[in-house]
């Protein structure tokens, strides 16, 4: 058996190292790596459908392409290099591959230390991939932390005027959450008397009847906090707008597109699957937080003046829906959550790229001082429009099937509570439409002389995402089949 997952990791690792070392040609190396990685991902998807052990139910989760090597083996401590994927991971790996290539293309003309920049882009993706495939607590944590550092430097070095503050805030917030998460995960392993830190062993241990409910509930809440800050959940969300506003465009794309997804993925894999009883007994807290995030993110987006800040708050709203879909704890909800994460990754990536280009071209991202950019930059305006319409859940674009499934799952579990996210959809439509009315439409005002439309690289980077938005919007079956066919344990 080819150790495809390790090959995936090594591709990115090698690419990252080469990129760091290759000076002015870094972008070519990064592009090459991204393309190779994309094709490896395609191969993985293809092979996944033919994986023998995929269908059917087992007592213990079975993961495809799994590899396991002992790393540290002591009588009282077993740490393994264990990796494996299921449909959920695969979708997110696919998202990473697409976002990586789009980001590299979009940032093609980066001149400020390009080798370091492209290296960090690849490093972020490397960490994310690691998180998505790791099935051992410490390995997982290693990769989890590995995503923080490149993002910290991206914001802190290439960012806007208040970049130091934003980078530090980002780092402290997520790091505190990581520590809580690590401690909680270790506590799960120890309190449940797991045989090792492997996911399978932990799963068996936490599902054995002797594991007290109270412990599960408390540990789940700790994990919820740990993963939730990455979501981010209200009220631990204030790092996100600041980080996005100060982050360079490529950093924003990866931050919104990938790093937020780590929280969702972690919550599904390491909290809900491991401690379903914990969720069941604390679900009202999770629901409350999810509703709060949905409402808060959407309502606040309405009054934001900075384009990026607006998109950041809308991310809080969308990730709130993801959280809600996870919290309802059904196969449909899970499907919705994963689809929505993919959709949000692509759409927010597009919107952040567009915001970055607006800033680049018109010198400001202030919604109130941008008027009628369409005549000067029609392609850019189209991109903003596609992104906004996709984000507000228009059918035939990528978010719709995801949001539909999420709402249906919510209705199924919570009944008429679904009216809250439904009505918030109107507010979401409201702020996007209002933004478009002010920024794109109306007579052009304050348009700088040097304002210009997108250059070819920006266009290409965004076109990749637009293509995904339309392709998977019209044919969501590609994604859905991968997720549906993965055996997800414990989800009714």
């Amino acid at each position, binding site marked *: 058996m080819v150790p495809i997952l390790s090959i995936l990791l090594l591709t990115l690792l090698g690419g990252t190292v080469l990129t760091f070392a290759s000076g002015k040609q870094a972008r070519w190396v990064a592009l090459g790596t991204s393309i190779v990685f994309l094709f490896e991902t395609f191969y993985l998807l293809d092979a996944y459908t033919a994986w023998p052990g995929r269908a059917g139910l087992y007592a213990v989760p079975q993961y495809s392409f799994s590899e396991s090597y002992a790393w540290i083996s002591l009588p009282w401590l077993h740490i393994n290099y264990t990796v494996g994927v299921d449909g959920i991971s695969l979708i997110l790996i696919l998202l990473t591959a697409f976002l990586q290539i789009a980001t590299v293309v979009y940032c093609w003309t980066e001149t400020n230390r390009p080798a370091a920049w492209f290296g960090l882009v690849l490093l972020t993706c490397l960490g994310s991939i690691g998180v998505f495939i790791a099935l051992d607590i410490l390995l997982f944590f290693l990769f989890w932390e590995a995503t923080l550092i490149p993002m910290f430097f991206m914001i802190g070095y290439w960012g806007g005027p208040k970049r130091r503050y934003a980078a530090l*805030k980002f780092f402290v917030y997520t790091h505190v959450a990581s520590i809580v998460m690590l401690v909680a995960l270790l506590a799960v392993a120890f309190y449940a008397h797991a045989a090792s830190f492997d996911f399978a062993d932990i799963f068996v241990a936490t599902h054995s009847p002797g594991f007290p409910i109270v412990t599960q509930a408390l540990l789940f809440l700790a994990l919820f906090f740990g993963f939730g800050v990455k979501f981010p959940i*209200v*009220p631990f*969300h*204030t790092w996100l707008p600041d980080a996005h506003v100060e982050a360079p465009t490529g950093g924003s794309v990866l931050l919104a597109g990938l790093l937020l997804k780590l929280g969702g993925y972690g919550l599904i894999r390491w909290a809900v699957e491991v401690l379903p009883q914990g969720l069941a007994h604390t679900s009202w807290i999770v629901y409350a937080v999810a509703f709060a995030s949905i409402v*808060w993110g959407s*309502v*606040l*987006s*309405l*009054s*934001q003046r900075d384009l990026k800040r607006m998109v950041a708050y809308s991310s809080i709203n969308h990730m709130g829906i993801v959280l809600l879909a996870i919290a*309802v704890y*059904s*196969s*449909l*909800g899970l*499907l919705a959550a994963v689809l929505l994460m993919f959709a949000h990754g692509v759409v927010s990536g597009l919107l952040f790229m567009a915001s970055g280009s607006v800033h680049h071209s018109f010198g400001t991202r202030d919604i109130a001082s941008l008027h*009628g950019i*369409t*005549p000067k930059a029609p392609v850019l305006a189209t991109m903003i429009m596609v992104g906004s*319409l996709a984000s507000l859940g*228009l*059918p*035939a674009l990528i978010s*719709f*099937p995801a949001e*539909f*499934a999420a*709402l*249906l*799952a919510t*209705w*199924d*579990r919570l009944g008429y509570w*679904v*009216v809250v996210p*439904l*009505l918030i*959809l*109107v*507010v979401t*439509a*409201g702020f996007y*439409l*209002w933004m*478009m*009315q002010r920024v*794109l*439409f*109306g*007579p*052009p005002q304050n348009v700088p002389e040097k304002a210009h439309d997108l250059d070819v690289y920006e266009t290409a980077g965004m076109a990749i995402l637009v293509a995904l938005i339309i392709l998977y919007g019209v044919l*969501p*079956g590609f994604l*859905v*089949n991968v997720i*549906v066919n993965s055996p997800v344990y414990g989800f*009714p």
Partner: protein
Amino acid sequence: MGAFDTLFQWAFLVPLFPLVGFVIVGFFGDRMKKAEYGGWVAVVLSGLAMFVGILIAIGEALSPGTYTDASYTWLNLPGTQSVFSNGFSLVMGTLVDPISALMLVVVNVVGFLVMLYSIAYMHHDQGLPRYYAELSLFLVAMNGLVLSDNLLEFFLFWELVGVCSYFLIGFYYEKPSAASAAKEAFLVTRVGDVLFLLGIFLYFATYATSGGGAGWAASGFKFTNGNTPFLGSLVGSASSPTLTIAGLMMLAGAAGKSAQFPLDVWLPDAMEGPTTVSALIHAATMVAAGVYLLVVVSLFLGFTADDRLAIVAVGGFTTIWAASMALVNTDIKRVVAYSTISQLGYMVLAVGAGFAMVGLYHLFTHAFFKALLFLAAGSVIHAVGTQDLLKMGGLRKSMRVTWIAFFVGAMSLSGIPPFAGFWSKDDVLASVYSQVGAHPLYWPFLLCAFATVFLTAYYIFRAWFLAFDGDGSRDASLPHAHEAPWAMRLPLIVLSGLALVAGLFAFVPSFANLLPGAGVPPTYGTTDLMLSATSVGLGFGGLGLAYLMWGNGRVFTLPADSPLQPFRTVLLRRYYVKDAYDWFGLKAVYGLSRAADFVDQYVIDGTVRGIERAFSQLSDAGRRLQTGVVSDYAAYVVSGLVGLLVFLLWIAPWLVRSVGGG
């Protein structure tokens, strides 16, 4: 199996042709030598779609039946907690039945004529490829909606139709009012849309769990199973609070799309779009989608009695509500727009009274005479360059065709025989009258409907007199008007013909198959004749009043001290509903958002920054301890030693004792 199944299986071509048009014009329109070429491509393709649509309608007329195509499974969803335990699929398929065939005719005939008209009308505008691409996309969506074989597919195209409307209202996006109207239209209909979605959930859940609907979820919630409604006997007989709410949600969705009270504010503002768009989308087809939804739901899913009462109330009230606002308006397009809302109210009223086919019948005739009115108004605007009725006048001399066309439309709208509107409106009134025994609350809404006949005739002829009568334009700055070019005249003539005869289709034996049960009032007894006479009398009354006040170039001015002035103000301000919505949006919601933003920045983030400040002050304090003097460090070390000793000697033993003892 029907005789024309081979024909019906090509129904997908109807949306496909405009889709091809959309792709060609949308992606390559800018590179064509002249902008009109793209327009011609779109016209030809929509003509092809019309051709197929008419063929299908003929097929259905000759051999009515239901044809469903093999469906494409769009989404395969896993089971949920309680309702759909085995999972379910969302499918895309086509359903051809008499009513969808009828709608295909309406959509594609009006669509084709409007496209043709646009070639001349939009000649001077920028961004023509965009215009034709969006119009083509609209036809794709509208045809897709008509041919949907399940509610979710319906919703999908419903939303697409909405976004096309958004694009087209905002076609002149550099005009702030157009941009604002586009947003308003999208947002107000969006309110209906989300409730519609909730209604879909409710229907799915209710029927999928009840006895007869067990296989429904597995089929992808199709409307029909072979030739019969999938839910069979459940339709109309099942009743539960959930079903009632589901029906109300459908009503909300329809009210958003069809601009029924209280979601009607967007339609008059939508007149910011090109007049052609108003004719096609905001008069003939898209706004009728709401009514079509109600028809489909009442046929395949069923309304409860309470739902029907609510629908009657909304429809009946909307007729007079919109008509009253049209009385004082001086913008030619807005007058016609209000009449659209009002007429849609009639359709909704009929559906609510239980006569879905009658509603559809009125939809059918209305589509033609309303498109006619809009295109005639467009012709006027094209000629004089203003929409203000008070500035126009005397156009009958220079624009004969338009003059007559507008007259035909106005007569039809007023329900004067033998114009199309008479037959269908009479049918509506008669069918509602036949149901007044069902609930005492039907009475007031029937009276509203009758009163509206009078108002309608008054305001539309007021517009007609103002625009065409008199000696010449009242504003000297207006250009001298010329009759429109042939590409505009031809659609006017065709539509005038249709507005004359469309009402009779229901009496032609084969065509009546498309509207089973409509066209023939419940009985031809004395009562029905009385009703007809009353409504025609009211229509002529309105016409006469309009002539007295506005005919022959007269301009009636309400005296400034008239006690009616406040009413006029209220009507001109549109009952302050729009102001209320603006207040709600700009003050309430936006204000809430600003307040929330304040909380976010100063309370939530303020707490975070407070924690940060506390830590930095703590570290400042720590820094002051670092004097650099060796003795001080020694003192700290010794303090630590003492502390350790105290802990080990006293605290730790105490802890051990208390834990061990307790």
